[in-house]
């Protein structure tokens, strides 16, 4: 399974009084990774809205392994699991770029709603077709972490 990678540098406003990145910022880094991956396949929130859907997050977890520090270069690795139900589950890894040390990992699940708030229990065919290139891309072998 392939992970898509995107980079960022730890900013001053992301570091707490202990000199390490405050835990909540990892969640916005997941969002950076998610948008970078989805943007490649024209599956950004605006694209979902155009298709008539929104995809709110219903579950989120993050495991912290090592702290990230000010000015460090960070890699956000993102993938999506092939759905077994009408939900999209993203997996994330946060690595320090210099030694590719795993700093945190996470998982987030989004369900699908119509614009009038009806939750979909089955992924509609038009959305399945739009998602397929993303899953084809993610099926390819991953570069070593």
């Amino acid at each position, binding site marked *: 399974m392939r992970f898509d990678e995107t980079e960022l540098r730890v900013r001053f406003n992301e570091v707490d009084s202990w000199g390490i990145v405050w835990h909540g910022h990892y969640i916005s880094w997941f969002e950076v990774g998610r948008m970078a991956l989805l943007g490649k396949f024209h599956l950004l929130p605006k694209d979902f809205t155009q298709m008539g859907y929104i995809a709110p997050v219903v579950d989120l977890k993050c495991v912290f392994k090592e702290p990230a520090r000010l000015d460090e270069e960070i890699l956000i690795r993102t993938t999506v699991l092939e759905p077994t139900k009408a*939900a999209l589950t993203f997996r994330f890894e946060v690595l320090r770029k210099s030694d590719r040390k795993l700093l945190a990992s996470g998982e987030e699940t989004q369900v699908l709603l119509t614009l009038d708030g009806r939750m*979909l229990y089955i992924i509609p065919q038009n959305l399945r077709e739009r998602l397929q290139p993303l899953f084809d891309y993610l099926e390819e072998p991953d570069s070593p972490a």
Partner: protein
Amino acid sequence: MSAALVLELKKLIIETLKLEEVTPEDIEDEGQLFGDGLGLDSIDALELVVALEKTYGVSIPDSEVGERVFRSVNTLAQFVKEQSAISNQQSAKE
């Protein structure tokens, strides 16, 4: 309502959602499955939809239908029974 089907559905709910400390006797036939009742959530609904489709070939497309079907085990059993009857009739015609 068929007691056998109701019991089968209770077992399916327990197995699908891995409700380790719940027995079929703990689930009331008319009790709410979501919210205040058994306390299931939206992801549980998605898992159940997949299991029901695999086991009985019934399709629950969205929460509009789901809210009616998942009200209790009895309403779920009623839906499975009706849908199975429809699909049997269709098979007989073909």
